[in-house]
């Protein structure tokens, strides 16, 4: 893998800019999409931006009976092929981290795709708690 997506929870201030950046980066038909990153508070004023870990042995990929989820070898992200997806929800139920979910507005399954190689969340994070870098 040529790039690494780093999450540094200690730097996260819970401003939710990443969530907005994600929703707008995945907008369709002039409507923002559902965010693929979730800054959650694990203690008062302490936040973790929870996002897809792009697991090596991913449960979502294994659970998909239609091969709609495949790894993009260039970015290392597990990407959803919308043309092959039937929205059965197997990946949503199988992901142990809860990072695949159903977007009711656009009627599709969403998961982090690292924006195809330039994640909007990392670009907008004001405290650099999200870093996308070459390794």
């Amino acid at each position, binding site marked *: 893998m040529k790039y690494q997506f780093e999450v540094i*929870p*200690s730097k996260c201030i819970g401003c939710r800019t990443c969530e907005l950046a994600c929703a707008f980066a995945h907008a369709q038909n002039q409507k923002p999409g559902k965010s693929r990153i*979730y800054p*959650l*508070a*694990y*203690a008062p004023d*302490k936040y*973790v931006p*929870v996002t897809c870990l792009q697991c090596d042995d991913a*449960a979502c990929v*294994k*659970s998909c*009976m*239609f*091969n*709609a989820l495949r790894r993009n070898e260039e970015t290392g992200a597990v990407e959803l*092929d919308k*043309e*092959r*997806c*039937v*929205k*059965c*929800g*197997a990946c*949503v*139920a*199988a*992901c*142990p*981290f*809860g*990072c*695949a*979910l159903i977007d009711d507005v656009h009627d599709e399954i969403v998961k982090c795709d690292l924006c195809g190689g330039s994640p909007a969340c990392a670009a907008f994070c004001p405290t650099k708690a999200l870093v996308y870098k070459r390794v």
Partner: protein
Amino acid sequence: MVHITINGKVVKAAEGEMLLTVLKREGIDIPALCHHEAIEPTGNCRLCMVEISRAEWEGWKKHVTSCLYPVEDGLIVNTHTPEVIEIRKTIIDLQLANCPDSDVIQKMAEEYGIYKTSYETVPEGDNCIMCYACTRICEVLGKSAISAVMRGHKKVIAPPFGEEPPDCIGCLACAQICPTNVIPWTDTDSTRTIWKKTFDLITCTSCGKAVITKDFAEYLMAQRQIPKEYFETCDECKRMATARKMGEIVTKAQEAAL
């Protein structure tokens, strides 16, 4: 790699790819009802008809369903000639007679300027276009719980003997893929009913939200070796658990650094 000409523009395509896949990738609007990338093409709806030709055919041409036609080098494709439009209009007109109440087909017909079918409509039609997308997706899943029964105009998609399908796992793939949305299902807080069979839904152990049917989860556990505990909580609770777990690690690391 092969080169084909689509509406005068030369494009590259992979060998063995179906023409419709290439056309869609090029952003050309081709109506199709029964096409889905997850299932094998069968050309049942006939809507994706295009005109093909080759330089050596000296002006001869033919009309093919693009979903079933593998691309070949030197193919000349025209997608919106008056003949193709006329063929498509006839097919849509027939589909509209078959499914007069279908929103999807009505909308498609309006796009082609058809507001009323010129044929006699099917009495008591159920909007099913017999495209077999549902049976094909069920086959891909490895279940084949439903199939076409009876013959001729009596043909319908149904479970065996019209009873509860023993192989159905309640995944809703058939209902989701149906182009005209004719497969009904109902969900309550803890059950799901489809094809007259009622399934128990696994509910989140912490918030009670429905996750997936028990049968589908068991199928995934057996087929794809997904651990049972992955299905026990809903996505929202799983995210919160992830945040807490990560928080613990952060707190421990910070304490160790002090």
